[in-house]
């Protein structure tokens, strides 16, 4: 067998920098090929580096995983709860239990009274679903569309954020056959010049459906001509519904009815 190892050692003495840089790799490669003993030698040499590497990994595992989990093992568990019959015959026991129970019931009643007895609407803006309730009874549910979360930036440094406001809102007004008065962003978004405040091109009938319910601050619950977009977040902050759902919600909710948006 040709002793590549011996041969390469001779080459390694060459003054060329390139050879000096690569000689370790070449020597290693040919050592592995030439004999198993040399492989062991190489492992011994590189063992130090491997040892350091594994020690580092072990250190990380100990600090990040083992210690945080192990420290909790030192906590002694609180003795489990008792059902002591001797306590139950004490005169104060019944009094304490009764008063605590009354306090629980009173708070539960108070909490339950917060749910409106009238119809109210719940809108889930993540799944784009709506739920119409009366008390705790679900009357109707379906798809809707809510704010797209688009932040529109105009060339004259104006900004609009198309997001449906979350929280509790009340119906501020009910409109039949609404006409949409297009705001500035509706023109800017389409690359059109913004007309004057009362320009006829701002008014568009039919695009909001047959009904609209106002939530205040310009936000509406209305119909849509883009019915296939229902269930997706595509609006400018309003809540869009299909014609049938809109009609039942319009009839069910009154001015002052609550709308919960989350």
């Amino acid at each position: 067998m040709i002793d590549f190892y011996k041969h390469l050692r001779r080459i390694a003495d060459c003054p060329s920098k390139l050879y000096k840089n690569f000689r370790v790799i070449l020597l290693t490669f040919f050592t592995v090929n030439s004999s198993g003993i040399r492989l062991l030698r190489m492992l011994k040499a590189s063992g130090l580096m491997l040892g350091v590497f594994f020690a580092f990994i072990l250190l990380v595992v100990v600090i990040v995983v083992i210690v945080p989990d192990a420290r909790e093992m030192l906590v002694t568990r609180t003795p489990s709860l008792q059902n002591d019959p001797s306590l139950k015959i004490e005169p104060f026991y019944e009094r304490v239990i009764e008063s605590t129970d009354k306090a629980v019931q009173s708070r539960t009643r108070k909490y339950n009274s917060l749910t409106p007895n009238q119809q109210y609407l719940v809108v889930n803006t993540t799944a784009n679903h709506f739920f119409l309730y009366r008390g705790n009874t679900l009357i109707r549910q379906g798809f809707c569309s809510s704010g797209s979360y688009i932040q529109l930036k105009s060339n004259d440094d104006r900004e609009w954020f198309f997001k449906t406001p979350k929280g509790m809102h009340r119906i501020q007004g009910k409109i039949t056959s609404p006409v949409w008065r297009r705001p500035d962003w509706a023109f800017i978004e389409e690359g059109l010049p913004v007309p004057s405040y009362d320009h006829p091109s701002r008014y568009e009938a039919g695009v909001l459906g047959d009904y609209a319910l106002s939530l205040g601050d310009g936000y509406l619950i209305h119909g849509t001509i883009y019915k296939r977009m229902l269930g997706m977040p595509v609006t400018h902050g309003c809540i869009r519904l299909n014609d049938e759902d809109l009609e039942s919600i319009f009839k069910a909710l009154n001015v002052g009815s609550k709308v919960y948006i989350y």
Partner: protein
Amino acid sequence: MENTNIQPSIAERQKSPPRKSLKWLFRLLFLFIAVFILFYFIMSAMATLRWVKNFNKEYTFEAPDSDPLDPRLFSDSAFISLQKQLSFSQARLDMAHPDSIGLSINLANSTMNLEIEGVTVHTTHIISYRVSRSIYGLDHYALARMLSEPLLISESSATIPKEPIMVKKAPKDTIEATLPDIMPDTSTVVPVFFRLSFKNDFQLLVLQEETIMSMQMRKRFVFLCRIRFANAWKAIKDVIRFRVPTYSPEIRIIIPSSDARIIYRALPENGMAALMV
């Protein structure tokens, strides 16, 4: 001649004194690391035990001397069960006051609700949960008492953005307006894992139900690693300053993916949560 030039140089290198000093250096380093780990463990254990002790001390019941209560009452199952219910109801009532979206977590009946002004708007079933062992070391009454107030969210992190905001530059003309320029929100396919840190050191980890999809497993691993590394880094910084690190007990909850996304998106940055353990 060439041969004789190389052979001694390698031999010299193998038996050179720096090698020996390197060995000593490694031995010293190993000793230093071992001592540090021991110190780190002692300080971490102290942090946990101290947290439990302080918690029990802060929230335990102190009866007035004029009207002492039987101590057996505080280990009575019926009394403690009622106290827990009372605390949970009180916390939910307090949470209902401000115009905000709150989260109520009932581990006893495995439900998690989103609530707005006392109205439950969304309910999800908790598939499984795990509570830090230190919580079981707390006094039953002290824990019930602490949970009678809603927990305030101080920090949150997740694999999805809270609001999937997309910035759109206004088009110059109608032709440019027709071009699709908005990247779709891909967060609907991204696995949802989120962490809520509360002001009283509690941490809530919400993980979506596990599946065998490799992307989900990888995301979950990375998310949990990131939390562990962040906690460890914080603890190390305290330990090297000879300070007892802060301890945060953890509640880990697994819920369906769609619900995890809805809950995280709905909760405000500094929202509130009511908890029943």
